[in-house]
Each structure stands twice: as C-alpha cells, then as structure tokens.
C-alpha cells in the first residue's frame, strides 16, 4: 500500500466483507461503523505493509478500536443507538448463525467470524490477533462446542 488513494481502493474492496463481520461480532451498527472508520483512518496514517489479508487487518484493527472506545462513553443519542442495536440483535436472533454466535463471548465470536466468514486460516488469525496458533485453535474449538450445545438445546 503506497499512498492514500491505494489504501482507499483496497479499503473499499474490503468493506462489504468486513462490515458484516463487525456487525455480527459487535452487534451494534453504529459501533461497527465507527470502528470501521477508525480503522480506515489508521490505515491512512499507517498503511499495512502489504495488501494481503487486508480484510483480516481491518477486522482486527476495527475490533481493537471498538473495544478501546466502548467502555468510555455514553451515547449522546442513546435511544437512537439502542434502537439500531436492538434492530440488528433482533435480526441476528432470527438467523441461525446469529443465535449461535450469541452464545459466544465477543472474543470467541471474533475468532469464529474471522475463521469461518473472512476465511482466515487459524495461523493467519493467530498472527493478526497476536496470539499463538494453539490459542486460536483452542478458542475456536471451545466456541464450536458451545454452539453445538446451544443448537442441541434449541
């Protein structure tokens, strides 16, 4: 990625995949949008060295930004924001994937979505999230167990 224009092009190509991943993980459309914007700005400032795995890079940076921000604020438009989040949650709850992902912690959701939706290998996921491959493997396995259990109970 050489300049801002390259970055914006790459970013736009990645958004259609990364935004749903963020939505499913964060379950808050405004938070997802803001996190995406922050990741975009981060990329303008310090573009990733390579365009490989850009979706994963965006996903990871956006999640990190969302986590950093979320606990510090209360919304100025609280009702609107809650309504939007409730709407997405309701939609996700009507979906099988949404119901299963609800059973997971946010961290588990992030790894499952990165692996199963963004198509990252466990090794790539480990590099992006800065953990050992074994940790990714174990977390996903644990998540799957929980999802299977939830599906069985349903």
């Amino acid at each position, binding site marked *: 990625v050489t300049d801002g224009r390259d970055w914006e092009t790459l970013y736009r190509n990645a958004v259609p995949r990364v935004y749903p991943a963020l939505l499913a993980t964060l379950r808050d459309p405004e938070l997802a949008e803001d996190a*995406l914007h922050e990741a975009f700005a981060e990329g*303008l400032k310090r573009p990733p060295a390579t365009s490989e795995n850009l979706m994963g890079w965006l996903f990871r940076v956006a999640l990190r930004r969302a986590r950093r921000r979320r606990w510090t*604020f*209360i919304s100025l438009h609280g009702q609107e924001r809650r309504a939007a989040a409730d709407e997405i949650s309701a939609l996700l709850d009507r979906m099988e994937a949404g119901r299963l992902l609800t059973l997971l912690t946010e961290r588990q959701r992030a790894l499952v979505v990165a692996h199963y939706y963004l198509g990252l290998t466990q090794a790539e996921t480990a590099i992006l999230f800065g953990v050992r491959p074994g940790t990714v493997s174990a977390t996903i396995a644990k998540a799957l167990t929980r999802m299977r259990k939830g599906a069985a109970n349903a």
Partner: protein
Amino acid sequence: MPEDDTIDRIIQRDLDRLPMLPADRWVPRTQPPLNWMHRAAFVPLSALIILVAVGAGLGLADWRAHRTATDEQQAAGQGVPGPLALAGGAPSLGFGLVSSSANTLLVRNETTPDAPFVYTSVLPQVAVSPNGHEIAFWRTATDASGMTSYQLDLKDILVSGGSNGATGPVPTGRLLTVPDGDVPGPIVWSSDGTGLIANTHTPATRGGDATASRPHASWFKVDVASTKVEQLPQAFDSFSVIYAWDRSRDLITGSTTSFGSPSLAGGPTFLTAKAGVFESHPVPNGGAISAADLYAKSVVIAYAGGCKGPPADSTLRCPVLEIRDQATFAIITGSAPVEATSGFPDVVFRPRSQDLIVQLPLRNGDARVELWSDLGRGTHQVLATYTEGPPFTARRELILPRVDGSAVFLLKFDGSAGGRWFGEVVALGSSNEKRLDPKRTTFEILSGGNPLASVVLDPAFARAMAPATQSAPSPRPAIAVTTPTGVNALPTTPQPSPSGPLTACGLVTGYASDGARMLLTLSTSDGTLQFNLEYQFASSPPPNDIGTRFAAKMPELIRVVGEQVPPDTGSPNAIRLKDFTVTRVDSCGP
C-alpha cells in the same frame, strides 16, 4: 448438531444477509475522532479534563507560551517572500480593493470610487493569488435549458480588463462546475500561485434530520496553467477549511470544525495531508485556531487563561497566542501572556511574511492593533489605538492588510450613513502610532459594497511582487499618494531601456511623493510611462505643485528629460533618471 462445514455455511449464508452499510458511509465524513465525539460524550474523560483544566489550565498555558520548538521547526521563514513597502499609510492608485455588492465583484483602486473591473453574477467571496492580481471566485451560470450552476472562474485583473468575457494569459472561464445538489465553498490558492483548491459541499440543513444522508464536502485541486482539475481523495471530506497548499512539499493543511459542545469535543482539529498521509491534531482544550499563513508555515492558536491568576472581572480573558508549525503542529513559539482583554484577539498574518497583525480588545472598551514581528518573537509595535468604544469590531474582515504587506486597512461599517465602510490605512513598519477615533475619521473606503480583499493594480508594483517565493527585497520607503482624485488611468509602463538619454512629455495621470522622490505617471504619445524620480538627482527643482494640481483635477502637461539609469528593486519597471529636469509645458509639441 452443526458440524464445522455446516457452521461455515450457516455463517456465510446468514452474515451475507445482514444489512450493508450504505456506500456513502464507508469512508468517514468527518475526522474519526470527532465523529466519535459527535456521538458520544466521554463522561469520565471530560470530567477529568475539566478538573485538570481548573487545576492547572492557567499554568499550562503559561508553560506553552514559553516553550520553543527545535531549530528545524523554527525555520518557518523559508519560502516566505517577505513584505514589500510599495505604498505607505495612505490610499494608493497602485493598489485596489475587491468588494462585493449585490452579486457583483467590484475591483477599485484605493483612491477613487470608480470600479475599473466589474464581474457580475458572482458569489460574495474571492481568493486573491499570492502575486496579488489573479482572483478566483464563484460565478453562477445558466444554460440554454434554464438550469443554473456554479462555476469557478479565474481572472487576471492586470490583463483581463473589466468585461466578464475578456481573456488574458491566465485561463478564464469555467475551471470547475459544482456538482448538482452541491454549493460552492472556500477557494484557496497554493502558496506559489500555480494552483487552487476549491470546495463544494451539500447545503447545510436545519433540524438535524437523522434519516437524511450525511452532509459531505468535496475538495478539488486545479492546476492554473493546464486548468486540469482533480478531486482530492475522499479522506479530505473531513476538512472544513483548508488553510494552505504548498505544492513543493505536497502539503495541504486545514481543520475540521468541532461538533457538539466545545468542552466535550475539545475544539477543532488541525489536519494535515502530506504526500497522501493524513494526520489529525486536536487543538488543545481551550484553544481556537486564529490564523494560518498561506505558505503552510505557521498557525496561530489562541488560548484563554494566560493570566497569572483569574482575572478580577469574569468577563475578561487573558489570551495567549501560541504559534505552531503547520506541517507538524509542533509548537514554534508562544507569546507571553498579554494583559486581560474583553475577548480573544483578532489575528491576521501580514502578507508575504511571518509577522502578525494582532488586534486586542482592551478591558476599557478600547482596542489596540499591534504588529508582532517574526511570529511575535520580535518587536511588538503598536500600530493604532482606538480611543472610543465600542472599537472596530472583532470581525476579521475589517482588518484588511494590503496585499504587498505595506499597510493594513482598519475598517468599520457605518450602517447609519446609508452603509459605508470607513477607517484608516496604517503603514506597517512605520514607527508612527495612530490614535483613531472612529467617529472622527474622515477617511472613507471608496470601494463600494463590502471590502473582501486587497489587490495590486499597478503593473510595476505587480512585477515587484512576483514571483511569490522570491527572496524579499529590502522594504522601500513608502510613497504616499497625496492626491486622491477621480483619475482612474493605471500606468502600463513598458520595459524601459536600461540607460541613455530620455525625453518624455504627457498628461499627468498619477502622482505620488514621499519627500525624497516622486512617482510620476504620464500619458504620452508612446503610451503610459511611470517615472521614479529622486529629487537628489534633479538638475533643477521640479515644480512643487504637481500634486496639488493633480489633486484638483487640473490637467497639466509635464516634460521630463534626463539620463536613464537602471531601475531600483522597489519599482523595477518605473523609469529612473539622473540629471533630470521636470518642467510644466503648454504643449508637448517639438
């Protein structure tokens, strides 16, 4: 029970059905941190900021005021051409004011009410090039079907003449058409005068319709020579204002306005784009951007709270001006706390320089205008004091520097007199402080409409000002036009030969004198000639009533004979003579 591949399929299928973010919101419309601020209040953080501000704000401002930057950061003067003194503290035929009146731009010289150049169907804003004679503005145009659009237009007032369709070396006509649904915004010249950046944006809406698509701004850069237009990347949409475009450094600076309460948002954010890399720098709490030069060198931040303790009167402020580097936002220098004032100072950069013109609203209702040389690190010279309140208001456009940096217009609008601007022209660099009484000043700015900007009208002066980045010649002593008259002819001095005998005779169409020399303009059979005549080189005393007769509009023929010598740097195309005689004649015949 879902297996791995089943989970894969379920997740792929369901997540693809989630609602997609509208494409116009993929990229932030505002700088992301502010976007967050806009929607969210940092309750714990803001409480902390308030506590810290109360506890340590004043000391922090004081600390800022005394911090200095590295030598590299202080090298802010490079590339700034330096002020000239082509005219002094009196109206000059060689300079003009662009004013707007009823969708019309008027370009008039400083001394007469006539407007040699009139541009119709334009918006009331203008951007003057660093060389002082190219103006860019927005014009409305209607096509055959009756559709109206906004177009960016460019004129060189030294060659384009007064008509709307006239042409010259500078491209005229449509440089850019505003996209449908958008309205024109600010126009900024590049620091070398070779390019423009112009803004278009969606009109501001009232009522805060949350369902409406977000307002956006687009920025376009125009190469003047080729008229090539290029839209800046969408990341520029977060710029509300662009201060400077330095093409040699590929640097664009600007800021975004703050959203919501300033106490939460922390004021505006200063933005830079250098070689496609964007950086944002929040203006520290309590600060406001006051001024920025067009060379992308320095930006002035004004802070409240420079007093050593809280002012006795809560309506007063103790401002501190801090100067930061436009490229890095690093602190270059700060002023010592000034005395308590009733509001923030007004600051403008002296054209072609890093000197500041600072207007301080004083606690007794008076105001004082000072010239701070070298970003405030040099001398602070009082230019003028207003003796009656309310003084000239804090509206910035009322402090209008002449484009060569020789003087500043201190203007006030008098609505009771049917609408007129009046005030004073104060020389910059002169040691004479003026005490101004707005009620008694007799000088009226004869621009008509509302003055917007200063321009150069004398080609000789214009040549002295170009190129924009030349090293500064030593400021020349000012020549004051002593005879404001209705004469409107502008000298179009041809290139004089560097030496040899010269005889010229013609009608006086311009006259100025500073006691040491005269600037005499004659309309001759060979065209209009301008002479720069130093009295010390006169063979015999010239008539001492040329200016008086000129002021009285009495036609007078003058013959000039002398030995031509190379021109001086201040008026490179005015004819300079030694051993000259100036005589009044009845006719210019042989």
